[in-house]
């Protein structure tokens, strides 16, 4: 087992031991190991690499936020970063329990690439870029090229996720997650909505209703044309309903033991409407 203290260390160890498992917070990995479905021979632990934890602002105006892959869900809920990417903080807050959030990392959530991974719809809506490193060098992939299927990602052997880049947007953000328990529950359906007032766009992505996070492009286009981005006039019911319907159309849900496809589609529609109303309350209402 290698306990890496730098990214270079970790990459070197992964090159030397191609079948080693990468261990971050262990909240996915150890469950699989304990259940005997992930044979474990060697481990490269990346939890003690300082350069993989925390965040920084990049770009001339600090318009890009670079978040280390080792940043935990608990870290993501801290006020400073929460004010920059509120939806990511909201999503991180819904992950597991306090114990899990203290260990679970953004990189682990990404690498697991579960359809129910809670940070994924937010990263999809933000059009995040994933930064990968190996002894060969750096690769940068947009989220939709990184998450390629159910629990399947674009990592090649020896490659580590080191960071995620997302834009710092001017505008409200929402993350809503539906589950059959009020906390510590795997999403039956989730939705992230981010507003870019400057670009006059709204971006919406869904979780748990398709093998990978899906964008609701038609719904985005519809509202971009009709919303009042200055926030004076709230969307009328007609617009909200159309938007919600188009979002639901983007879902490709299945029936499983956590929920039926019919419920998932319905739930996505409901939370889409609510997210839009929250993001555009009009001048008379204050955002919560």
């Amino acid at each position, binding site marked *: 087992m290698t306990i890496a203290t730098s990214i270079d260390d970790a990459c070197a160890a992964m090159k030397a031991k191609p079948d080693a498992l990468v261990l971050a917070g262990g909240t996915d990995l150890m469950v699989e190991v*304990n259940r*005997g479905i992930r044979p474990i021979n060697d481990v490269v632990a990346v939890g003690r690499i300082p350069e993989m934890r925390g965040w920084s602002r990049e770009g001339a105006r600090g318009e890009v936020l670079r978040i280390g892959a080792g940043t935990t869900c608990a870290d993501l809920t801290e006020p400073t970063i929460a004010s920059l990417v509120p939806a990511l903080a909201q999503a991180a807050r819904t992950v597991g329990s306090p114990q899990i959030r203290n260990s679970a990392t953004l990189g682990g959530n990404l690498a697991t690439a579960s359809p129910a991974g809670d940070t994924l719809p937010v990263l999809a809506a933000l059009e995040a870029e994933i930064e990968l490193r190996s002894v060969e060098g750096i690769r940068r992939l947009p989220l939709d090229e990184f998450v390629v299927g159910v629990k399947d990602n674009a990592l090649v052997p020896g490659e580590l996720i080191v960071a995620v880049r997302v834009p710092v947007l001017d505008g409200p953000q929402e993350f809503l*997650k*539906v589950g*059959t*328990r*009020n*906390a510590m*529950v795997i999403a039956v359906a989730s939705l992230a909505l981010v507003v870019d007032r400057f670009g006059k766009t709204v971006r919406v992505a869904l979780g748990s209703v398709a093998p990978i996070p899906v964008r609701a492009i038609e719904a985005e286009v519809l509202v971009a044309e009709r919303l009042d981005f200055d926030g004076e006039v709230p969307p009328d019911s007609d617009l909200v309903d159309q938007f919600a319907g188009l979002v639901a159309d983007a879902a490709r849900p299945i029936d499983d033991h956590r929920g039926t496809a019919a419920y998932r589609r319905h739930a996505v529609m*409901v939370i889409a409407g609510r997210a839009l109303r929250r993001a555009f309350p009009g001048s008379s209402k204050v955002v919560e």
Partner: protein
Amino acid sequence: MSMVDTATVQRTETPTTRIGDSAARPDGIPKVTGDFVFSSDLWHDQMLWGGTLRSPHASARIRQINIGPALALPGVHAVLTHEDIPGSPDFGLDRPDQPVLARDIVRYEGEPVVVIAADHPDTVRRALAAVEVDYEPTKPLLDPTLAEDAPPIHPDGNVIRRIHLRHGDQEAASRSDLVSVEGTYEVGMQDQAFMGPESGLAIPDGEGGVDLAVATQWLHTDRDQVAACLGLPAERVRLTLAGVGGAFGAREDISLHIHLCLLALHTGRPVKMCYSRDESFYGHVHRHPARMWYRHYATSTGDLVRVEARLLFDGGAYASSSHHVIANATCFAAGPYRVPSADIEGVVVRTDNPPCGAMRGFGAVQSCFAHEAQMDRLAAALKMDPVALRRQNALASGDVIITGQRITGTLPVVEVLDACAAHPSAAGGPNEPMSRPGGAGRTADVEHIVRGEAVALGFKNLMFSEGFDDSSEARCVMHSGLVTVTTACAEVGQGFVTLVRQIVGEVLRTEEVVLEPASTNSIGSAGSTSASRQTWMSGGAVQLACEAVRRDLLARVADQYGVLVDDLALLDGRVVGLPNGEEPTLASLTVEPIEATIVHQHAPTLPLDDCGQGDAHVSFAVSAHRAIVDVDPDLGLVKVVELTTAQDVGRILNPLQALGQLEGGAAQGVGLAVMEEVKVVDGLIRNPSFTDYLIPTALDMPPLEVAALIEQPEPGAPFGAKGIGEAPTISSTPAVAGAIRAATGLDLPRVPVRPDDIALASREGRVSPEEAR
């Protein structure tokens, strides 16, 4: 004149170990700090690890089992099949109908087929994967409604028990002026969801016998079943209770006990087994799923006239305690109400679904969900207040229940109902986003929420019934002042270990107490830790044994000092009241030990006759819950905002432990109402993990308001105390379900209530948040 001087009387006694005190659990701090040794922590330096190969099919013929490849693996010490069972090939709590290891047929997913012992858990895992079982899958019998007419899937047939209870005038409903309501209700399969998975350690004694340490609810019946399957006389199989991490009925049946002993005797080595969480879902019985049709008849002024019901319980593949579960469901089918005429048919059938058996509330949970829904429906039909309807029909001491039995003990139905219904609510509005339906998921805004409220009553027997009059044995020895208590009562978290100290403190006025480990070697059976019975049965046995020691002790002192026993008393480890002012210590008086062994029995019960009539029960208890819920109808999500309870307790022995039972039981009831279900599709469990078998978190379980604990001492019960463990689980579920109905206007005839049931229900009849406001 009293011989006790005032100085003695005023001397303070240790205040926390008398009856009525909130004595702390002796195992409380070790459990919180992680020092307590649970069964999964058992260890022996020479031990092997055991594992179980289970059927992946709900129904299949076994053509062949090839253990060769597993046996050939280095580190594997034993690979056993049904051919290696020296004694009875079958076991069972009521009757031996379940193979220790499957022979030619498997009848449910997870049925054990092969057991293995090896040097390391990983070796066990590899060996399990190396066993070749050639199955021929057959069509499983999955629909309980078809079971009766289907070809038998077991030599004992597909009907495990049918009870047709008929009470009173069977023509009572033929009057034309009655109001009737009808409904069909369903309860899903709940799991006990204890935290400590099945585990144990078997150690061969080198002479053909075996010692087994195991987490269980009932050592002696386990011992008898294990011995029968090993082909050994009972005394060569010794069971000792290992640290139990919860039970709730799931440990009443044998799980790994026989397998462990077989492996230990076969290898001559200690063998440990510990189920994984997933395996645990296959390793124990669940609560019976039920379908229940009901019709209630009442006069137009709200007097119940007759209840008709058809209860169909799915027992799964093997009988377990189904026989008694259906009896309870049937006997308590009408709830704690005066019902002069009844026709209740209770049937429990065999299917290829997971076996079902005991779980907290034991049959009464299912029928309570139905009869309380019916009472609300009847109240609506009569345009009556649901609480008033219940009060008007409430049973009381002296009344006759639908089994024809007269209630001779206490039964404060009106008292618990009124206390609960009248208790002021402390529930605030849904202002805090996290405390709305959907919780941390932030799905609801205030305007999406509707609130509902409902009250429910629950009714159940205490102790075993129908002539199954088991006893409990206890021994009390006082030696050099130290009191040693021995019983085989299984402490499963209910607090018996605390109670023993309180009983000794109360009767013998000393804190110097040792409770011997519960074991089959040292004492006779205590009976099962179930049916809300151990405080009464084993608590009673300990009380009687302590009283016998006290009598002998005082007689010894009276004799020695030439005084009357009546002048003497015990106080703080001394005998007081001697005319010479001397206060001999218990230590000095019991250099020569004093010992008493008592077998405690409750009043006898009788079997039910062909019409389900008879004095089958020892005692009864009643509880009330009021639930206030917030519902987000569009998403079908629920937040239970407040739960209030009042319970018939006889007498409170330990207020803190009583609260623990009330809170824990209610949490299990909330779970059944809104989330807890073992989802079985095509006979296969789809959610065998705590990832997907959801139990309430702190955000789901509201604060429990205790409106009242009604103390009406029960005649015949030690200290007048009734068992209190099960009632909280019974009435909480229907209260929550009723509150969701009140909020949404939907029928919701099934628990757990799923989001689909609310969100996708036809909008007709549904209350919208705007209308509700």
